[in-house]
């Protein structure tokens, strides 16, 4: 491997020869060229060699100076030397040469080559004390910018933000010149701008403030605010810092908006899944189903059982498919329970909504206790399949997780399919007919009892699928349903019954409002505010946002 340091060595040797051969006035030229060369070539091997041998000095003060100088030099080879020194693996030969001991062999830190002629036990260990260790750590921090590992370089470039100074700026400039990875270079330039903002000349500071204005990092924000507040800051620089701060705040606000919007849509889609089934049963049959939350819970347990089945009986490679199987299983299971519930209890209570409410509450208690008796009270863990884990990082520390995206998509697919069923199938037509005018639908030959049972089954089945979705974002426990039941009711009441559009708007707006209130008021207070707002909203529109008009609207009460 060619050592780049040799390239800078040869011009100097050439210059030395010039001194020996030519007149004194030529020596001046040589000195000037040497200085120029030193400025052009960032890693000066002679200095590196000198400093490395200075590490072997007896005095701790000299050692400390050499370490600091090595740190500022910006030579990648210094990392190995300083690490070795810190670990007590740096040895000194009797002739003054310094060697790195690497378990089995000795390595020359200047060339990186083995030194087979020396034996480790013949060499002295170069001693360090705690003060030196501190200095080494500081020097290494800067040097990681030159590390061979791209991840370490990126980390160091970001760390450099924390202690901006003139020294840092010099190091970063060298590092940027050597850097080839564009992402790391961008991070380094950001840190360089921060360092220059603090320590540079006025023009540099102004340019740095402009550069920093295009970022979103909170640390940079603090830094700019500090510069702005410092009493000795130049007015122009202060103004530039102000502009940069405003631009950062603006961008952060937008990112926050996007994050809240996404979280709100995510929560809204979960609420929507939980509430769609309720909206159908309430809208079509005027039935308040308090056991709806338990249908969700049953769906989540169906997902859990599917997962356990896949783990126990099928090849390990198939585990990712369990969720695909869990959706129809949960739908069918919850729908079956729903039809049984409708046939055995609810059909005797039509026209008595309050009694239905109490009876279904009783059913919900029984279902909860049944699940608790079978599976036990502790939370069950349902893991995300691999295609749902992970997420995408966006600017400003805002992550979009994949499971939430899948749930949002799933929710809209369910809604779309449901809209198709309601509007394009014979069953949907019958359902709408029964919703609008039950006696007339019955007169026209629609078997309303059958429609009721199927509708209730459909609503419960969708709740079951909602349970599968919920199992992907939270724990599965017998109380799962009770967490969502009040929220789902509010969605239905807010949106108006018997109306998918109302449910959609109700769920999404509740979700988004909730998430926007959370940072302002805190999660619990935000929820309280939403509850109170809905209670007040009901006063104005007692039948919801999208109320059914006409005769049925009055009869429902």
């Amino acid at each position, binding site marked *: 491997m060619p050592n780049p340091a040799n390239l800078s060595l040869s011009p100097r040797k050439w210059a030395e020869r010039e001194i020996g051969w030519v007149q004194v006035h030529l020596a001046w030229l040589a000195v000037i060229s040497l200085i120029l060369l030193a400025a052009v070539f960032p890693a000066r091997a002679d200095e590196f060699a000198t400093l490395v041998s200075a590490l072997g000095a007896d005095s701790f003060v000299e050692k400390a100076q050499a370490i600091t100088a090595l740190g500022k030099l910006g030579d990648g080879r210094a990392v190995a030397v300083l690490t070795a020194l810190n670990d007590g693996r740096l040895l000194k030969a009797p002739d003054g040469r310094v060697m790195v001991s690497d378990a089995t062999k000795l390595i020359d830190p200047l060339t990186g080559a083995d030194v087979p002629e020396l034996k480790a036990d013949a060499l002295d260990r170069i001693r360090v004390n705690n003060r030196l260790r501190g200095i080494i750590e500081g020097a290494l921090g800067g040097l990681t910018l030159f590390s061979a590992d791209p991840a370490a370089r990126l980390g160091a470039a970001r760390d450099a933000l924390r202690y901006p100074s003139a020294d840092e700026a010099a190091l970063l400039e060298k590092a940027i010149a050597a850097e080839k990875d564009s992402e790391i270079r961008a991070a380094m330039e950001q840190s360089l701008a921060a360092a220059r903002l603090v320590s540079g000349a006025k023009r540099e500071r102004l340019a740095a403030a402009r550069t920093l204005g295009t970022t979103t990092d909170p640390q940079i924000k603090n830094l700019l605010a500090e510069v702005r507040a410092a009493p000795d800051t130049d007015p122009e620089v202060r103004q530039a810092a102000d502009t940069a701060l405003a631009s950062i705040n603006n961008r952060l606000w937008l990112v926050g908006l996007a994050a809240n919007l996404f979280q709100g849509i995510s929560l809204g889609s979960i609420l929507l899944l939980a509430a769609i089934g309720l909206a159908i049963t309430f809208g079509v049959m005027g039935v*308040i189903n*308090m056991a709806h939350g338990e249908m969700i819970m049953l769906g989540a347990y169906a997902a859990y059982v599917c997962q356990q089945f896949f783990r126990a009986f099928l090849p390990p490679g198939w585990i990712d498919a369990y969720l695909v199987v869990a959706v129809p299983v949960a739908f069918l299971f919850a729908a079956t329970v729903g039809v049984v519930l409708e046939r055995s*209890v609810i059909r*005797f*209570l039509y026209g*008595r*909504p*309050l*009694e*239905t*409410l*109490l*009876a279904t*509450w*009783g*059913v*919900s*208690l*029984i279902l*909860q*206790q*049944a699940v*608790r*008796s079978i599976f036990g009270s502790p939370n069950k863990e349902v893991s995300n399949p691999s295609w749902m884990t992970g997420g995408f990082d966006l600017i400003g520390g805002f992550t979009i997780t994949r499971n939430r995206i899948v749930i949002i998509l799933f929710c809209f697919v369910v809604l779309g399919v449901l809209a198709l069923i309601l509007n394009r199938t014979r069953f949907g037509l019958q359902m709408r007919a029964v919703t609008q005018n039950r006696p007339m639908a019955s007169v026209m030959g629609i078997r309303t009892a059958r429609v009721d049972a199927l509708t209730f089954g459909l609503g419960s089945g969708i709740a079951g699928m909602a349970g599968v979705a919920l199992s992907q974002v939270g724990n599965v426990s017998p109380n799962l349903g*009770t967490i969502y039941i*009040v929220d789902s*009711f*509010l969605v239905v*009441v807010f949106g108006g019954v018997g109306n998918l559009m109302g449910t959609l708007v109700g769920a999404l707006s509740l979700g988004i409002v909730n998430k926007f209130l959370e940072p302002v008021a805190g999660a*619990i*207070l935000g*929820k*309280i505010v939403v*509850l*109170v707002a*809905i*209670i*007040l909203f*009901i*006063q*104005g529109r*007692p*039948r919801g946002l999208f109320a059914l008009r006409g005769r049925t609207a*009055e009869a*429902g*009460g």
Partner: protein
Amino acid sequence: MVLAYHPVGRTLWSPGFWAAFLGCGLLLAAAIPAINLWMPPNSAVALPDYVIPLLGKYLCYALLALSLDLIWGYAGILSLGQGAFFALGGYCMGMYLMRQIGTRGVYGNPLLPDFMVFLTWQKLPWFWWGFDHFAWAAAMVILVPGLLALVFGWLAFRSRVTGVYLSIITQAMTYALMLAFFRNDMGFGGNNGMTDYKDILGWDVHQPVTRLSLYLAAVAALGLGYLLCRYITSSKLGRVLLALRDAESRVRFLGYSVTNAKLFVFTVSAVLAGVAGALYVPQVGIINPSEFSPGNSIEIAIWVSVGGRGTLSGAIVGALLVNAAKTWLTGAAPETWLFVLGAMFVATTLVFPRGIVGLLRQARWTRLRAPAPVAAGEQA
């Protein structure tokens, strides 16, 4: 749909009624304390001391059930937030009891209750003002639930929020209150609530004599509450309530103010619930936000249904029976309790919509109306 057979006119306040009322009163207020005080502990009918606060607790529940029956059974308002009024009354009493602790708390702070010291608060929040005095606390027990019900009811009934919609928003109300009281910085003790009481009116709450007095206070409150509800339901207003329960629009078209009638009875019911809560707290020794949970409020409805809604005595009987069953079952076989409770909900709505007292009354009416004894015998 006719849910129960209501006694009308003179029979309501007849000597027969007073005899039954006083008989029950004597049993609760004289016989039970007497047995507790003078029966030797090893005799067959002895009542150990721990039973007295338990019975007192049941009586508070009975008053709570009575308050729900007044609005649900007679005015068709199924409030699923009745527990909120109960808990608010309880919190008012709890605050008074907290102030009575004085310097005997764990931290011995003369100014602040323990939980505020724990939160490193410096001074008492303004809404704790006055709770050093029993009279203030007693007024708040009535005013706080009453005012909340007045405002909430006015908003709801004015815009004609009825039926299940009203049930759901009352549930949302108690849910919101529960979340609020769970917050530590509300100043009501957060999720631990308030406990570790020492004195009430200078009497040690742990002494048997204080407990017996509290029990007697609960008996008295229940008796007075019952008479009040009976008076309201038998008055002209009571007739209007029954009518609007069965056909609200028709009553409105006849010129009655449905809003005012409902608002009045809703507020009275909230005050009764608040008083029940205030008597409940010193007997059980704790109040915490779980009293606000929606599940608790729905459970009150089952007490009323089991006893028979639309019958005041039914609410009391239901509350006593269901809670006695709960105490017994949660001790004997805890995992079966929810099955039994759930089955009660289903059974009372499907099979016995009239409840126990309703069934008894129906049986008596059938017997009275039978044209001849012979025919009655054949029917049976």
